[in-house]
């Protein structure tokens, strides 16, 4: 029985076109959404959910094949590398794709009731269209192995993200969206400039091909500029300190389900970009990658400290969560830049786990706002009594963000701290501990406000649990925050060879 199942799985996974289907499904689904709305507007939320669900299923055979065969490519048009655009499914693409697959269906299910209130009616079809475009763009960005194609998908992701921030129509959100757009456009330009320089130097756009050709070059300044432009560009997209200014307002003022996608997934696009940059320049001896790494380690550490510090002093629940995103991006970048096997492993794990945790938190926070219309901890006092399940989910997510074992947040941070010790830099292990302590402070603030204070606001006293179609995704994700931490062995085994390969390419 088990054998038959295995055979059919591998037969399914052997179909060569899953990789292109993975991006065509959400993008094609998005393209048809406005037309579907004109035909049958009630179907749109279900349609989006269906598309997201099918996309999620598509990831399964891909993961299967990756686990059994290692990274593999797909060549649209059949042009051999480097003449066409290559799509490639490696472990890091898989991380982001798995996160998108896991989180997209709950977010869209949550959206059906939530967006009906948070988004003006006329904008609803475009809300779903943009969400699907955003998710499809993220998948494309994760799997492309071509520099310019990366830029194009990055633009799909960014443009839809700017608009999604403003889709709720709050004046604050529109200002935040414009700020986000300006920063995002500058970072995109820097990335395009770097792509241009790399193209002028190598005559190629395929990442593997470029990486192969770069070490032979004798142009230190041009290489440094290209690397710096890519780094700064992707750091801006990922909101790493000191380029984080645009993030808190944009993520806090967007509708809750959008905040979840932005904080959970979209900033990870910047991280994937940083990973790809690293892969490009790992073999270049002219460039002092160790120096660049040292800068990134410090910036990551600064992000951890500054993000936590600001989060502790926020009154607005969503702003607090937004600053915590900066902290967690800091962990991931720090882990990567420490460049020891365990730290990199931890960073990769945390990329996925943070996506899960932050989505849980923002959805739960969105549900509180949906019922009460209140945003600050002061106002939400005592909400734990009237919305117990939702608040339990939020508390569980908050525990995970602190990194209490055995929650999802623990594993990544644990490995990053171990990796810091392994790299002989215990200071950065201290940074991890310090960040966790500060996170515990705002965790206590949340718990204190929700459970140990008397409700004052009328909206809090009369609040009820949100409808099941919103509560179920939140609870499910919260349970996953707990459960995934227990299953950490699996992704660790999966990622270890990838990290080893990456570090090999470097030496």
């Amino acid at each position, binding site marked *: 029985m088990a054998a038959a199942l295995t055979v059919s799985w591998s037969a399914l996974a052997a179909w060569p076109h899953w990789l292109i289907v993975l991006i065509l499904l959400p993008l094609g689904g998005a393209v*048809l959404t406005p037309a579907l709305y*004109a035909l049958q507007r009630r179907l749109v939320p279900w349609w989006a959910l269906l598309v997201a669900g099918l996309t999620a299923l598509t990831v399964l055979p891909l993961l299967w094949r990756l686990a059994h065969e290692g990274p593999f490519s*797909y060549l649209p048009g059949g042009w051999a590398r480097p003449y066409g655009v290559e799509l490639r499914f490696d472990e890091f693409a898989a991380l982001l794709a798995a996160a998108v697959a896991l989180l997209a269906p709950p977010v869209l299910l949550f959206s059906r009731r939530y967006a009906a209130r948070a988004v003006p009616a006329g904008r609803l*079809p475009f809300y779903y269209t943009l969400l699907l475009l955003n998710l499809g763009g993220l998948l494309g960005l994760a799997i492309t192995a071509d520099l310019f194609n990366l830029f194009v998908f990055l633009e799909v992701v960014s443009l839809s993200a700017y608009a999604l921030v403003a889709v709720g129509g709050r004046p604050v959100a529109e200002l935040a*969206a414009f700020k986000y757009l300006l920063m995002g456009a500058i970072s995109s330009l820097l990335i395009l400039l770097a792509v241009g320089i790399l193209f002028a130097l190598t005559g190629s756009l395929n990442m593997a091909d470029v990486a192969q050709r770069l070490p032979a070059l004798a*142009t230190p300044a041009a290489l440094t500029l290209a690397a710096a432009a890519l780094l700064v560009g992707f750091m801006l997209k990922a909101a790493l300190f000191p380029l984080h200014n645009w993030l808190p307002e944009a993520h806090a003022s967007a509708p809750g389900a959008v905040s979840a996608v932005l904080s959970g997934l979209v900033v990870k696009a910047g991280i994937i970009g940083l990973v790809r940059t690293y892969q490009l320049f790992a073999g270049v001896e002219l460039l002092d990658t160790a120096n660049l790494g040292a800068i990134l380690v410090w910036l990551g550490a600064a992000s951890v400290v500054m993000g936590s510090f600001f989060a502790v002093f926020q009154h607005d629940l969503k702003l607090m969560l937004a600053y915590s995103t900066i902290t967690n991006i800091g962990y991931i970048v720090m882990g990567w830049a420490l460049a020891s096997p365990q730290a990199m492993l931890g960073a990769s794990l945390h990329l996925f786990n943070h996506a899960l945790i932050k989505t849980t938190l923002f959805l739960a926070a969105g549900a509180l706002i949906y019922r009460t219309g209140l945003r600050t901890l002061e106002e939400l006092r005592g909400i734990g009594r009237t919305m117990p399940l939702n608040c339990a989910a939020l508390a569980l997510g908050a525990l995970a963000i602190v990194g209490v074992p055995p929650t999802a947040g623990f594993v990544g941070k644990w490995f990053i701290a171990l990796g810091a010790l392994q790299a002989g830099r215990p200071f950065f292990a201290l940074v991890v501990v310090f960040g966790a302590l500060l996170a515990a402070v705002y965790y206590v603030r949340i718990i204190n406000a929700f459970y140990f204070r008397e409700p004052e606001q009328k909206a809090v006293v009369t609040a009820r649990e949100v409808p099941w179609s919103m509560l179920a995704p939140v609870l499910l994700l919260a349970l996953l925050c707990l459960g995934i931490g227990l299953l950490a062995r699996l992704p660790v085994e999966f990622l270890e060879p990838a990290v080893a390969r990456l570090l090999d390419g470097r030496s």
Partner: protein
Amino acid sequence: MKKPLVIALLILLALALLAAMAELPAVGQADAPVHTHVSARYIEQGEAETGAHNLVTAVLLNYRGMDTFGEVLVLFTALCAGFAVLLAAARNGNKHYRQPPAPQESGAVPVIAVSPVVSFVVRLLAPFIALFAAYVILKGHLSPGGGFQGGMILGALFIALTLVLGKQYSARLLPVAWRPWLYALAPAAFLVVGMIGLQLTGYFLGYPQEPAWHGVREAMMVTLEIAIGVGGAVLVASLFLALESD
């Protein structure tokens, strides 16, 4: 106070950029990697491999079709983004969403007051410009031009006509009921042609290369060109209408 600092920083940035660019292969050098690596293949074999005389079109539709698919998606995203930002926010709860443009009587844009002479010239030239755009779209694989360029010309023409003749006219040119379908035209054409390619060659967006299939190959390219041209024009025109409807 702030300005001198910014200027000083920008000068530093400029120097860094110049230092890096000085190391690049000199401009116009025929043996630079740009010309000897990937591009060389496009120039030497592009015509045989794709059937397009215009190598830019060969790259856009064939070698790097995924980029162009992404490009029309970016335009589609921009339009949806425009709607998501601009459509009436105050009408929460209203089940009838306003499909732009609302039929307004005072459709004139304040800054762009059109004189009778301009109006006459635009109307006079419109058929010729449309014809030129069609030529650019249809012959894009043989001569300079292509779906995208022709589509932009068509879109610009539509905008000029709307400015001159008012929105009632644009609603006739671009019926409101068709719009959601037309928005999808360009990206959907990529999906369809890509799938046909998958059936014929085993690769998404692949084009059959055997001589017997050259007619099919050209038909696939022209289909994409027309879809990009018309679809692109609709997207650009609708962006204008969305912005202008306030």
